[in-house]
């Protein structure tokens, strides 16, 4: 399962939070992607070099969501992020 892997932000990706919004920006293409608060927290965890498992625990502590629902959402998110080369598998 993809969530058993750990991820990192490639050097060409910039991440920034703006109050209640967060953005990932690909420097090479100048394309940017808005993130919802949970996705933003996940990226922040990756940026802090946390494992995916630790990131999931972090989100569960912050938001009232079941682990099952969260993992389903994160699986889709990770697949999208990998597809757009916004994160890389370590």
């Amino acid at each position, binding site marked *: 399962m993809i969530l058993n892997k750990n991820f990192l*932000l490639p050097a060409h990706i*910039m991440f920034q939070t*703006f*109050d209640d919004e967060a*953005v990932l*920006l690909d*420097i*090479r293409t*100048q394309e940017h992607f808005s993130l919802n608060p949970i996705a933003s927290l996940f990226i922040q965890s990756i940026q802090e070099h946390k494992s995916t498992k630790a990131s999931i625990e972090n989100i569960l502590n912050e938001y009232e969501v079941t682990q099952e629902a969260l993992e389903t959402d994160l699986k889709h998110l990770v697949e999208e992020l990998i597809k757009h080369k916004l994160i890389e598998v370590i």
Partner: protein
Amino acid sequence: MREPSKECELLFDISKGNFSIASLEGINESYLFTLAQANGLIPLVDKALEASRTRTPEDSFKETALQIKRTNFFMSAQLLYLIDLLQKQNISLIPLKGPLLSQHAYKDLSLRPFSDLDILVFEKDLPKVAHTLLKLGYESEHSLEALSHPYVLQKSSDISFVHPQSQVIIELHWKLLKSASHSLSDINALFQHSIKHNFQNTQLASLPLEEEFLYLCVHGAKHRFERIEWMNDINQLFILYKNTFNWDKLFFLAKEESYQTPYALALKILQQRYQQNIPHKKSQALMRSKTVLSLYKKVFILHANDYILKPKKEGFRWMEFYFSFQLEDTLRRKIILLRSLFFPLYIDDILRIKPLPKHLSFLYYLARFKRLLKL
């Protein structure tokens, strides 16, 4: 002498990191906002308010600081994109001020607003860089012929490009300072001694510390330190590097380049406005010169009158000219300043005439008359 407004004093306090809720007593918040915006200090005021939890429901500081954060982020991305493209063509560059200064002096990209991206490149690379900018959709008001015209390269130091959609402005410099003629004009040495800063996971070249400090002193002085942010930039660098600066080198650079007066003025501001102790005797001596004291007094008066908010008079401004005149260290530079006042020569003037040999370069001034007479 008139004292600065409470709002102006508060901005200086915030820029020094001294802020408490009590400081807001008797402050006109709307005026504070306008003054902070003009002085480039909105993010710092916002940070101070945030730290003291002094928030109102409609917080214009927060909203504007957020906007600045967005702009800085997207402009930084644009800078990194350009650097990536240029590096692929083996073109070296040094970003000046802007995102890199914000990140390295303030340790936070969002704390220092910037409105353009300044980059220093080798003269030989100018056509390639300009071509890359044009391909990205940037436009210049001048013909690109300017970038290979020897007299333009000699008399000018930079050219601007604007992106019509994003409104991002890129200033392309081939000299660090227009009138520098020794170490600061030696671009090879600047690149060779440049230091690396980590910026968004990328190692970017930056000016050597002393050169950067002097550059900011001269830049701020040239603009009469009208904005507190220019003083604050210097103060931030001073705090970070006062113990690592090679003060003898800094002093020598200022002397060699005839920038002793702007350098001493900046140090005087640090001493008087930011209560900093300047740890270099020769520099302290410079700060005691009558000219420096007179210039410092003028800067103080500008801020006491919140000059930055006053509508600027049309036409010639004697006070500004006299300030610039006093700022010049040498008679030669004072004469050049006078010449530029009475005989300004613009890039387009030079381009009106085919390149001339050096000994005939005075003929370029005829182009000015050609323009004035609309020939």
